[in-house]
């Protein structure tokens, strides 16, 4: 337990060190980096992704994965746009989009939790299928011209310099932190992710919790999609395409194991900051979006590879030490042991 705690601490310590390094380099490159406006802007450019990353943390700790989030975001954005285009009031369009997100989540959750299919396959189908539904709705059009209050919601500051989406993220982060780290439900998420069979034999309603998590994922992804539509001011069939890579990267870089059961929101929070600052710094250096994604991909692999290599080296070193001891103490110890 103590060793585990130390490992976690060192993981977050490492992230913190990277963050400080990136921030220092950025501040050196561009004095404007440290301004409050740039910091808010940096958050706002990826605000939808980091909101979804919060729920993704729950899902991955629970031992599942949801590849369909970006498609749900796109679908929700398309529903809002298409309904608005047909003359439905914006408020109702948003409600329908959120309901669609809940439905998508319930659909994924049903197959995973109650039929027992692998979430990788189910949400892969969802990823293709939900995007497909969005394409059916919007075809190859681009719909914009939303009411002023809606686009202002995504683009203008609401309280002080902070826009609505950033305030929402702060609230959701606090809520997620309380639920995951300090509530009974949060403990269940960990227990099931660690060993679903044991959880089931302990009388925990595993399917219900998993269904709940997928519904939450669908709802939050739809909310993020609506926010994205508000920020961009126009929606197309490929809105939010490929976001799942960034979202999953944020969670895994935060020290959450893809096999479930370990990780926490503090790590994910730090990794979000690292990725946002890294991208911001690269933008300051005029590095293109594709290269930025490539660098994030490298970071994702290294974040798992380096600790593994370190552990392998440590194991080899320990084994050699044990062997050396055996050679020194002679044969009788190995016989008696």
């Amino acid at each position: 337990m103590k060793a585990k705690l130390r490992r976690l601490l060192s993981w977050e310590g490492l992230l913190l060190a990277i963050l400080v390094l990136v921030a220092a380099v950025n501040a050196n490159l561009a004095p404007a980096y440290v301004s409050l406006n740039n910091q808010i802007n940096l958050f706002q450019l990826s605000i939808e992704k980091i909101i979804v990353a919060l729920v993704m943390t729950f899902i991955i700790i629970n031992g599942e994965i949801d590849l369909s989030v970006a498609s749900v975001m796109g679908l929700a954005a398309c529903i809002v746009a298409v309904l608005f285009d047909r003359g439905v009031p914006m408020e109702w369009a948003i409600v329908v989009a959120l309901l669609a997100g809940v439905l998508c989540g319930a659909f994924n959750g049903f197959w995973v939790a109650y039929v027992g299919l692998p979430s990788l396959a189910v949400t892969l189908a969802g990823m293709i299928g939900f995007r497909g539904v969005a394409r059916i709705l919007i075809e190859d059009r681009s719909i914009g011209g939303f009411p002023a209050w809606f686009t202002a919601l995504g683009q203008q500051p609401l309280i002080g310099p902070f826009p609505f989406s950033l305030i929402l993220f702060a609230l959701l982060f606090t809520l997620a932190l309380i639920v995951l780290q300090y509530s009974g439900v949060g403990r269940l998420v960990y227990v099931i992710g660690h060993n679903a069979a044991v959880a089931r034999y302990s009388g925990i309603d595993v399917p219900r919790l998993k269904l709940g998590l997928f519904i939450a994922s669908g709802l939050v992804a739809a909310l993020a999609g609506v926010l994205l539509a508000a920020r961009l001011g126009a929606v197309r069939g490929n809105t939010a395409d490929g976001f799942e890579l960034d979202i999953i990267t944020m969670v895994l870089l935060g020290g959450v194991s893809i096999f479930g059961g370990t990780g926490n929101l503090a790590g994910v929070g730090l990794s979000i900051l690292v990725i946002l600052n890294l991208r911001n710094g690269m933008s300051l250096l005029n590095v293109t979006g594709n290269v930025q994604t490539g660098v994030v991909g490298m970071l994702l692999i290294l974040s798992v590879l380096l600790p593994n290599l370190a552990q392998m080296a440590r194991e080899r070193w320990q084994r050699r030490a044990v062997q050396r001891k055996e050679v020194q103490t002679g044969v009788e110890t190995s016989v008696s042991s």
Partner: protein
Amino acid sequence: MHTWRQRMRPEQIRELSLVGLIVIALLIFGWQIENFLSARTFNRITSSVAIVGMVAIGQTLVVLTRNIDLSVGSIVGFTAYFVGSQLAANPGLPPVMAVVLAVLTGGALGLVNGLIVAYGRVPAIITTLGTLAIYRMLLINYANARTITVDSLPSWVVELSRQTIFTIGDFAVRPLFAITIAAVVVFQFVLAYTVFGRRLYAIGSNPEAARFAGLPAQRTVLAAFVLCGMLAGMAGFLFLARFGNITAVAGQGIELESVAAVVVGGVNTFGGSGTVLGALLGAFLIDLLGQGLLRWLGISEFWRDALLGLLILLAVASDSVILGWLRRIWAAPALRAEVSNEG
């Protein structure tokens, strides 16, 4: 009753049912759609199955070991562009060398995946999600917004997709499709009868048992990823031959199509069961339904993705439910025999 049950395994029934579904779909579409069973439809489906099928072979090898390779789309794009630019620069390059170049390029990219997964112990989904982005980044930097055009390629490359090897009735078999079929035959044999092939199944169905049995798990997984890369490289060459015009986004989305083919083809995503032939049939069924449903229902191209998603889900669901049910039927006589022996 007894004899056929002894001869066949549930997995083979699954392949037969895929063939059955394909035949039913062909009959319905042929009956409902005018001119569906034509040389043109055949040509269109086989050309697209040639590329996805080639990638799906490699994907099968990797999925059998309980891994996944999401970087294949980027590998296909990278190889197509790289080989295309080499051919444009040296038109005298012999065809064999171009193919070898494509396979080696893909193999090198697959090697990186395999080393990280097998020896770095990084989960395959993380590794290949990362290399999906990294390989695409390399390609975009390499391409530098230039496009490879048909005109710049030697004529034999472009001709490859139009030639006919032999005809069955009106249906012409093109070289691209023939190459993929040959690869399927080879790998079907490798999986069924070679030590390497059986190891892939053993490692996928129970990694721990395979390790205790002394199987070289790391080396085998590495080999699966390298082969997957090589096959994706070959698919990159086919892609170049089929389209001729290559941009930096070439091959995007093929990773999903190959996973879909594999899943519909009955390869278990938890590893250990499935065949290359199944994956090819899966690719064929998806393409056939895509082409047929769009024309039959008169719906637009935009419906394709939604149908594909639904199809994958149905395949996975029926796979899990029906196979579990079939396995119980198969296991029943053995169980009864055991009980009567004890009693």
